[in-house]
């Protein structure tokens, strides 16, 4: 199947990478098995359809309300956090965000960073940025630790190493850490833990993400299941949290439903093992906690999505990953095929705002618009509708204003002309009937090779008489027999 794709495209495009992923039987099995189990977990966590739908509606409204007041909430968050003793930094680009983090580490003469799981730090490629400046940045989430050890990127936003099974992890640990191979998952986790424990104590700075930033109280809420988030944010003397500006919500009351939606949609959990609520550095009379807490608020294209009423809905996302778990495309090609930080349906609608649509021109097309993602999204992002919108932005001609950065890169006058012809055919009944006449008469001449279609199918042969033709004959006959009786 792959011979039609030039070698360069094999690594440079979604389609090319998909060919490689589809041929990898182990990868296919790993994803299918994992996604099936995640879908079941979510379904089991929402046994009552009415409750689930009501909660999704509430989640959607809470996020919409927060977004409608985004500038105010961000300012309130900054004021409250500052009052609590947290340093707040603003970054428009990932480069700026990295510089801020680096400056903080440098001011402490730090050389070791331990990191809780954070997709925004992936967006920033923080590990690489810091490594180039001789700062070691170690991932402490087990999945992130595994992919870091293997020099990979996460393939799922919640379960970064979901593309590997236990045997592959065992082999990796054996090769990289020199430990014996084992099939026992618990033993594998213990191996990782022993390495990480030491690092928590040695680290100069702990970095984490944020699930919800609460404006009213100036609280950073972080959920996790491994305890590594709590360790990263409390053991090192400095804690730096990085997050996107869309994570702000008005108050604690708003968090309860969102949290319930997040954990149930992601892993089918009623609640995560750890829920961290960080409201400032260690106070004078407290025994533990970091001496300094920083928050870096990153834009990285989010304000571009915010500026358009339809695309703004992208920012509802609470990063649960349910859309990828339910996506028939993601299930078959895995996260790395997307070639970007955020894979799956959410990746397809959020990435264009970050890197430009021209960098991911195939993403909007890599969907059958089946709607499974929109159906499960806990905050009701109309993902298929937004994909359709991005396809629209993709094919805009150069003289139409680009709304999304990098829009119009798939514009082709040839394709536009084809659709114009299609339009003429379908708006002019005489022309359409001529087409039907020709297609039904010449059906036998349908070529055996119809490009991509005939890679998977035989060529479809038009019927010898169209429905227009059959219906006319049938209804006329009815009429005649009706007149006679």
């Amino acid at each position: 199947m792959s011979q039609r794709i030039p070698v360069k495209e094999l690594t440079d495009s979604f389609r090319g990478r998909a060919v490689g992923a589809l041929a990898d039987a182990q990868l296919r099995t790993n994803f299918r098995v994992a996604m099936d189990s995640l879908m079941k977990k979510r379904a089991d966590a929402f046994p009552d359809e009415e409750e689930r739908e009501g909660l999704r509606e509430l989640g959607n409204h809470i996020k919409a309300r927060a977004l409608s007041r985004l500038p105010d909430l961000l300012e309130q968050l900054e004021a409250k956090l500052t009052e609590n003793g947290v340093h707040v930094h603003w970054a428009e680009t990932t480069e700026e965000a990295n510089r801020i983090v680096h400056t903080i580490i440098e001011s402490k003469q730090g050389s070791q960073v331990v990191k809780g799981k954070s997709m925004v730090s992936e967006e920033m490629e923080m590990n690489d940025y810091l490594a180039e400046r001789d700062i070691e940045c170690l991932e402490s989430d087990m999945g992130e630790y595994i992919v870091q050890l293997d020099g990979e990127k996460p393939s799922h936003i919640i379960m970064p190493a979901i593309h590997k099974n236990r045997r592959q992890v065992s082999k990796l640990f054996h090769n990289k850490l020199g430990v014996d191979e084992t099939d026992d998952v618990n033993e594998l986790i213990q191996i990782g833990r022993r390495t990480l424990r030491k690092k928590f104590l040695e680290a100069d700075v702990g970095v984490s993400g944020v699930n919800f930033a609460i404006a009213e109280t100036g609280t950073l809420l972080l959920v996790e299941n491994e305890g590594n988030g709590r360790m990263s944010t409390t053991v090192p003397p400095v804690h730096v949290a990085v997050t996107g500006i869309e994570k702000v919500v008005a108050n604690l009351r708003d968090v309860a439903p969102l949290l319930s939606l997040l954990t149930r949609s992601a892993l089918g959990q009623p609640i995560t093992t750890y829920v961290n609520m960080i409201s400032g550095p260690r106070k004078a009379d407290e025994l533990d906690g970091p001496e300094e807490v920083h928050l870096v608020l990153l834009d990285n294209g989010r304000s571009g999505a915010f500026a358009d009423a339809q695309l703004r809905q992208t920012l509802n996302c609470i990063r649960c990953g349910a859309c990828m778990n339910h996506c028939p495309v993601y299930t078959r090609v895995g996260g790395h095929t997307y070639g970007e930080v955020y894979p799956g349906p959410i990746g397809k609608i959020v990435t264009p705002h970050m890197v430009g649509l021209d960098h991911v021109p195939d993403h909007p097309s890599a969907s059958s618009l089946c709607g499974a993602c929109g159906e499960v999204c806990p905050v009701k992002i109309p993902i298929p509708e937004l994909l359709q919108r991005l396809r629209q932005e993709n094919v805009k001609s150069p003289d139409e204003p680009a709304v999304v950065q990098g829009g119009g890169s798939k514009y082709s006058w040839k394709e536009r002309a084809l659709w114009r012809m299609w339009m003429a055919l379908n708006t002019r009944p005489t022309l359409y009937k001529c087409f039907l006449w020709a297609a039904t008469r010449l059906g036998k001449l349908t070529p055996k090779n119809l490009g991509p279609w005939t890679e998977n199918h035989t060529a479809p042969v038009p019927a010898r008489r169209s429905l227009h033709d059959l219906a006319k004959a049938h209804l006329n006959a009815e009429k005649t027999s009706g007149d006679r009786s």
Partner: protein
Amino acid sequence: MTELFYDAAPNATRVAPERPGPRTYPAKPPEVTLFGTCVVDLFFPEAGLDAIRLLEREGIRVHFPQEQSCCGQPAWTSGYVNEAREVARAQLNLLDNGLPVVVPSGSCAGMFRQHYREVFAEEPDTLKRVDDLAERTFELTEFLLHVCKVDWQDLGQPTQIALHTSCSARREMNTHLHARELLGKLANVERLDHDHESECCGFGGTFSVRMPEVSGAMVLDKTRSLRESGAVEMVTADGGCLLNINGSLEKQKQTFRGRHLASFLWARVSGEVKS
């Protein structure tokens, strides 16, 4: 930083549309329009004719306007909005006579009922007519079940079938529920479940040619689970899926096939056995 936002579309935040309540159905009308759809027109015309026969059997006079073509979905999902809108307008004008519109395809019915609102979002005057059309549009199985309230005698031999429902039919029109209930009325038909039944068959219109490898993997899985269900054939209310699934089965040199639900239903209730 925050000054970035003050210029951006004020009060432009969208809230998800309210969940529709269960649809209320009108009494059986004396006349309807059949919108055949372009795929049925060219590739499965017999299914369209069988839909007409099923409706006539219920004492309904069926109109088939010869000026109809396509609902506009292919251009719409490909991002060619202007082209889609003009094709949609042609159908909207054609169907603007107040008669119920019956469609033997869930995704085209979904286009009328859900997406024309997006297609004509910037034309408030047209939207009134769009809403009117949406109100009058029924997918075939939905119409037979809830409007005609059919009561059938199954004249066919005992058989086992699998039902495939297109994604848009399922998610926009609840066709899987309607079709299941309708098939349940046939005494000699047993519907067998298949693995990952609600998963997409990989068609997705232009997706099947833009991403042939991914689409091909999806249809391979779908045809496998259909064959392994133990059913002797597959039925579906969607021409697009049927084109995809049967084309793939033929390419694989399998003997298992799918057919349009309208043809299957007509064969059962009329006793006519077609090759």
